[in-house]
């Protein structure tokens, strides 16, 4: 087994894992865009999506319906978070709001622990477990689902921001809240939609990777951290940058571990992120600070 074959396998793994990071990162970027707030409960959305799907399915709800319902539940949680925790504190500073999201993530994790316990759960793959061979490398049908669904989600989000009135209104809020308000945009509603959309993307990520990995009540912590890194790497506030950042992070981890050492897998990825931030503080695709003003 030569270098080339190994690299190919690492590429597949990297893109799959990176897709999940990309969706989580995208969720971070959307909320950051709308309100300058880093929502640290983003990882919890992933966990709630996956766990809801697993438990609805186990409770006898048909597979596809369970997946759909899980997304609905997560969106409801995301919107409730905005309505009952973020909105009442709308006059608070950005830092205070970020602290609120940290509190919310602890609350959601605790609730998940009470509802679902500490056990580990898995989800049945979308379509079988027949290994697909691509030359010397192998993948599961679920890998394709992860990549495909991520691509579709990203395209839809892009379309939403570029071509719909609501999407443009959210972008307007990100540039200048007061001005947006003055031209008649319902800023409160836009924020609510942003949280809903972020939760939706989180849930999709969770459902997609649940059959590959397994979920526990605290699985959102690590995924949230990786998604956050993706968003930082791509440039906070640039949704497509976050997607690129996620894919890069996945590839860095996988190829770094493959070529250098798996013991330093996370370290390699984080060192590169630090280097990027050192030379380009606003991320690879981030707008420089003065552009935003």
């Amino acid at each position: 087994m030569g270098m080339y074959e190994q690299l190919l396998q690492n590429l597949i793994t990297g893109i799959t894992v990176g897709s999940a990071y990309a969706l989580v990162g995208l969720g971070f970027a959307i909320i950051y865009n709308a309100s300058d707030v880093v929502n640290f409960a983003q990882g919890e959305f992933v966990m709630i999506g996956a766990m809801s799907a697993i438990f609805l399915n186990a409770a006898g709800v048909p597979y596809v319906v369970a997946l759909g319902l899980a997304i609905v539940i997560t969106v409801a949680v995301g919107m409730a978070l905005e309505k009952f925790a973020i909105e009442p504190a709308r006059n608070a500073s950005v830092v205070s709001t970020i602290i609120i999201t940290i509190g919310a993530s602890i609350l959601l994790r605790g609730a998940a622990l009470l509802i679902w316990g500490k056990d580990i759960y898995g989800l049945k793959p979308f379509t079988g477990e027949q290994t697909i061979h691509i030359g010397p490398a192998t993948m599961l049908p679920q890998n394709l689902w992860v990549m495909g669904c991520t691509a579709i989600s990203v395209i839809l989000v892009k379309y939403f921001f570029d071509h719909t009135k609501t999407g443009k209104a959210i972008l307007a809020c990100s540039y200048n809240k007061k001005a947006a308000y003055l031209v008649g945009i319902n800023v409160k509603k836009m924020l609510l939609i942003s949280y809903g959309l972020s939760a939706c993307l989180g849930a999709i990520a969770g459902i997609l990777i649940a059959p590959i990995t397994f979920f526990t009540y605290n699985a959102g912590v690590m995924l949230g951290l990786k998604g956050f890194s993706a968003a930082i790497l791509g440039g906070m506030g640039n949704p497509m940058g976050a997607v690129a950042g996620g894919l890069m992070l996945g590839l860095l981890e996988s190829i770094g571990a493959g070529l250098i050492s798996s013991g330093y897998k996370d370290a390699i990825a984080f060192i590169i992120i630090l280097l990027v931030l050192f030379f380009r503080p606003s991320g690879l695709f981030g707008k420089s600070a003065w552009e935003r003003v």
Partner: protein
Amino acid sequence: MYRAVTKGLTAVLFGIWFALITTVFTAMPANASGTIKIGSFLALTGPASFLGDPELKTLQMYVDEINQKGGVLGRKLELVYYDTSGKAKVAKDVVKRLIKKDRVDLIVGGSTSGTTLAVIDIVEREKIPFISLAGSIKIIKPVKKWVFKTPHTDRMAAAKIFEDMKKRNISKIALITGNGGFDKSGRAQCLDLAPKYGIKIVADESYNNADTDMTTQLTKIRSTDAQAILNFGFGKAPAIVTKNVRQLGIKLPLYQSHGVASKKYIELAGDAANGVRLPAAALIVAEQLPDTDPQKPVLLSYKEKYEAKYGPVSTFGGHAYDGLFIAVEAIKRAGCVDKAKVRDEIEKTKGFVGTGGVFNMSPEDHLGLGLDAFKMVEIEKGAWKLLY
């Protein structure tokens, strides 16, 4: 077997009863009245609660049962326990409390190696018998005068695996472990023991226990000339490794540690788990043991009682059973709860049939289990199959 134990117990109690009648008025030690206090500190909440929960349930169930049958030495047992959440600092505090305030006669507890190792100093200083329920070999090696333990060690698991590999003429293996305490300790034991079995570790990969995918590490392993893969870990990661091995089409034999010896692992890994070999406590294959096995009746009795009351058994609760009964037997042999005498009797435990194996302790060995205490198990069609 269990009946024999209870019969013996009643006989002993009967003898003690007579002895008491004749001597009660002449020389009654100050502490002979009242209860025998067994102290315990367990991880009942927190990440290690999957250990502490069955341990406490087991202790409570058997303390009640012993008391219903008249107690030990004619005195009732009293269980005094505290939750450590698996934290070493808390363990230190509650053990001091057990010794100084509750004045327990001995301690059976310490769900995790971390909490156990943290209290060894206190236990040694206060000179109180302590039977730990945690895995690490460091607890009993080097030997500490007052400290004993009942669970198998990771070193034994590694030795058992290497023994099986030798039988299959495997001499080059790939090791893959996580970043948790259990993983790291297991890895260290594997690296240390492998040369003694003539086994070469050609790849030594690691992963983060929260990782979602291990194909990268396994791809690397695939490119080596390893003849088998050994994964030391517990939780969800070994299940992901197992799935990834099959997904990559790797045909090498896969070994897991005793860390995955629960139904959950088979459930998570699904079909991919078939063919996986691991060393495990006899409890999970109790029904398959030959009738001549002395452990079989003990295991079946424990399993039946526990499952009737609480649901599926785990080997962890079994460690508590072993600890409690080794203590009770030692107290009976000592004929009192004098700490030094009880300690001496625990050390003299010979041929005690527990859930973990047949215990033969000595001044050099405060665990007393041989490699035969581990059973080599293979997963076949989603069920455990006892190999030997």
